[in-house]
């Protein structure tokens, strides 16, 4: 087996045991990137590779020197008989939205094309402290604003390794693509409305969005501060647990980080699902899309194969002793996207105010005066998505509005949270441990198919966004392929800080399908090179 097909846990154990050198692991990872990634995304977007449409394009930049030094440090530790960490020698890619000292952190925007961060994000620091090798920065939608990766200012943006004519999803599309294409076994992503889970589902990998506050946000360039969560993308559930283990915990630099003790997630995986109460909800059977003429919601059912995969998963778990509770009402799920439009746009518009051309990043060279500097820097520095979101956010938070939309949306967020509280209430009618849902309404769409319709693109997040509103943990795991050989993802959601439960349920499902036929199929991008 090639090194790049090893799981993170296997790599770390082999490295610690002296069976595999971190430096060799790094070489293998870099070789895979050279083989499958093609041109990295860049501002001029000039492809040099005739095969560019068949490539993954997960990366924006490599941090090879840093990774090399980290590998040498790990190998030296192992040679000295020291503990080299839970992620000893594991190559990790970082969504290019995390600050990493002395490297360019672009947020996939022209606005930060030359921004060298003077500090390192807490989550990234914890990965490095655990022996991980930071291989490079991967692509994303500009400032994480999107669900397809297409809005990146760094083109070519990532493709879906399963079919490179399709999008990898977003915004952590580069992360999902890098993991699916075996470039790195782990990637650090972020999830604001589904930005880890949706691309993970599209690319057939595992994606975990932890509870809000479980992993520090310090150093994550903020999209919507009250929703953002860093989290792992990996090829199996155990690796997601391992990466979470390393990154979880309180951080004095982030007031919203939780001070609750971090449980042993790897141990939690050892437990089965006997007696676990897993719910299914009719409110996750389709997406509710408001008809802008009538104001009524129209229900568009989820893709049949995805619905079937979800029900199959329920059956698998029932066979292992889980109790399946059907018809759990989650009536406010349909307001998830409208509320998200308000909260995330207002917060995003505010967070982007600091991009003014004065201190760092892109700036116009020939500004006539201060106003001209601001206007032209932001006009030329931002792509269409940031502009749309700034406009929408400014409009919604304008003092002239009679309604305080932010406050109103916060109230509806409370109602969405209440749906989950009732479902998980230990003395309530449902007493769920976890909710099982599709991760996405469809499998990965074709490039350019949805891009350009910001509203429709946003509705791709309806299955995932309520979890962000409520601050809960949720995981997506691969659950088959559709008739076009595109991956299907299913999602487990649990109560606050019960990452252990979603990991357990996902792990049990994964282990019960290890021999499934669809697991033998390799992504298209790997078939030619490996």
């Amino acid at each position, binding site marked *: 087996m090639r090194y790049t097909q090893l799981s993170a846990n296997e790599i770390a154990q082999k490295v610690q045991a002296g069976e595999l050198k971190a430096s060799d692991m790094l070489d293998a990872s870099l070789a895979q990137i050279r083989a499958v990634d093609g041109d990295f995304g860049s501002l001029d977007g000039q492809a040099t590779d005739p095969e560019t449409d068949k490539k993954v394009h997960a990366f924006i930049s490599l941090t090879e020197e840093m990774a090399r030094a980290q590998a040498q440090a790990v190998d030296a530790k192992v040679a000295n008989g020291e503990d080299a960490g839970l992620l000893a020698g594991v190559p990790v890619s970082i969504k290019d*939205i*995390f*600050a990493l000292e002395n490297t360019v*952190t672009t*947020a996939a925007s022209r606005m*930060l094309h030359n*921004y060298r*961060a*003077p*500090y390192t*994000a807490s989550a990234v620091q914890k990965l490095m402290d655990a022996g991980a090798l930071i291989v490079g920065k991967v692509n994303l939608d500009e400032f994480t604003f999107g669900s397809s990766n297409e809005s990146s200012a760094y083109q070519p943006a990532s493709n879906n390794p399963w079919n490179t004519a399709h999008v990898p999803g977003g915004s952590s599309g580069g992360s999902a693509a890098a993991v699916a294409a075996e470039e790195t076994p782990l990637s650090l992503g972020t999830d604001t409305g589904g930005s880890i889970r949706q691309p993970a589902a599209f690319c057939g990998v595992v994606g975990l969005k932890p509870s809000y506050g479980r992993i520090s*946000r*310090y*150093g*994550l*360039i*903020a999209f*919507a*501060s*009250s929703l953002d969560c860093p989290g792992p993308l990996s090829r199996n559930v155990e690796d997601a647990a391992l990466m979470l283990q390393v990154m979880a915990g309180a951080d*004095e*630099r*982030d*007031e*919203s980080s939780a001070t609750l003790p971090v449980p042993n997630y790897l141990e939690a995986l050892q437990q089965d699902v006997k007696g676990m109460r897993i719910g299914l909800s009719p409110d996750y059977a389709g997406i509710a899309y408001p008809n802008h003429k009538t104001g009524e919601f129209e229900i568009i059912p989820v893709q049949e194969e995805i619905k079937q995969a979800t029900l199959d998963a329920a059956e698998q778990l029932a066979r292992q002793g889980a109790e399946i509770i059907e018809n759990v009402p989650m009536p406010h799920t349909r307001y998830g996207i409208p509320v998200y439009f308000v909260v995330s746009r*207002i*917060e995003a*518009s*505010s967070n*982007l*105010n*600091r*991009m*003014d051309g*004065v*201190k*760092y990043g892109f700036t116009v060279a020939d500004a006539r005066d*201060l106003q001209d500097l*601001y206007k032209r820097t932001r006009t030329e520095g931002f792509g269409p998505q940031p502009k749309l979101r700034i406009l929408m956010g*400014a409009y919604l*938070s*304008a*003092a*002239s509005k009679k309604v305080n939309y*932010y406050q109103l949306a916060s109230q509806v967020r409370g109602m969405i949270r209440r749906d989950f509280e009732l479902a998980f209430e230990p003395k309530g009618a449902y007493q769920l441990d976890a909710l099982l849902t599709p991760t996405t309404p469809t499998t990965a769409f074709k490039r350019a198919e949805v891009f350009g319709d910001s509203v429709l693109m946003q509705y791709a997040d309806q299955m995932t966004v309520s979890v962000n509103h409520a601050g809960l943990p949720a995981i997506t795991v691969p659950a088959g392929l559709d008739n076009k050989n595109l991956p299907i993802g299913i999602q487990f959601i649990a109560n606050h800080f019960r990452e252990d439960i979603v990991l357990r349920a996902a792990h049990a499902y994964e282990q019960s399908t290890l021999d499934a036929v669809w697991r033998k199929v390799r992504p298209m991008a790997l078939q030619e090179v490996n």
Partner: protein
Amino acid sequence: MKEYEIIVGLETHIQLNTETKIFCACKADSWEAEPNTNVCPVCTGQPGVLPRLNAEAVQKGALLAAAMHAEINPCSIFDRKHYFYPDLPKGFQITQLFEPIGKGGYLDLYMPDGEIKRVRINKMHLEEDAGKTKLEHGQRMVDLNRGGVPLVEMVTEPDLRSGEEAAQYLSQLRELLRWIGVSEADMERGHLRCDANVSIREKGSTAFNTKTEIKNVNSIDSVRQAITQEAKRQIELVESGGKVEQYTLDWDADTGKLSMMRSKEGEADYRYFREPDLQPVILSNAEIEAIKASLPELPYARRRRFVEEYQLSAYDAEVLTSERGLSDYFEEAVALYAKEPKTISNWMMNDMIRLMNDTGKSAKGLVLKPAALVEIVKLIDDGKINAATGKSLLVKVEQTGKSPATIVEEESLGLIADADSLRKQIETILAGAPNEVAAYRGGKETLMGWFVGQVMRATRGKADPKLTREILLELLKD
């Protein structure tokens, strides 16, 4: 000419004297530091950073609220106020709009004529300071050292009626801030900044007319002058048939002139919303009570008590309570020598204040502690040393740190109170001055002073004056 009334409200920015900035670990004080040397990723607004609240700023803000008789908010919340300016690195200021740290409150002004004037507080909240910009060689330079320094913004109701009242307010606020220890309140260093809103109306009217805002009135004299001048301008304008327009004016303290900065056309849209990166600031009942309990006796209460309890004059009480450390020093000394508050007061008012001025130290910073002062006063009262020696002892104790008794011993400064040895010396002096003795005995009793002087000269001032006189009277009787 009609009679006019001047309406003034003051907006003050108070820099809290915390150790670190309000949302990061940088030092709060960067006076005279090179530009941009006291900064970090957080206070320069790097992408991805998060604020974390300095608890000391909350404590000091709440203490100020207590001192202003405001209600301390048990759950105050930070908001973002958005605008673009180069000295504002995040493009928004973290401040409090909807749930500020203090609600309501007032400051009672003790006017020189003895009247008490209550000035109500309209709002009081915590916020971060911005950096500074300046023009240099035609370029706008930004210095973010001051960015993130904790401020309390405090705005009065339009309760002040003259430049003089405004000056009184600022002066007494400054005293209060120093007294409770929340701010150095040094106006020259920008610890206490002030903008003034000024309007006029005909006497008897209750309407509020268009006001102008004067920026940068950053000394007590400036406040008095600028407001007086602006009110005069408005009155003359209205009298000549003009109309006051809503201007922002800039005060130039060097020329003593007001100049127009810009006309204010409607409020800017700051798009306030709750700061999602900070948790609500929760203060329990017990914490609020503890903050209130830690509030020291305020200057005016202490002043009144000094007059009543120690029978000090109003003037002495005012001087002794002009600074909290000074009044504490006085009370500590009085506690050690309870029968003589007036004597202690005299020493404080004259020699101690001179000693502090000469050494540049505050009462707290003196080597000479209240106990040593009391020891010196007792030595004089007990006739062990004379007053002049006592005064010189103050300086010597301050310089050497030795106790007064030790210095008296080492330098033989004690009075000669031994009657036998003194009698012998006086006999010798009288024997050497037969003419004067004869003249005295002949009725020229005014020579007594001369004899005392001779004794003092011979003993280098150390003779106990009372005993000297007694012996002289006895020996000259014959």
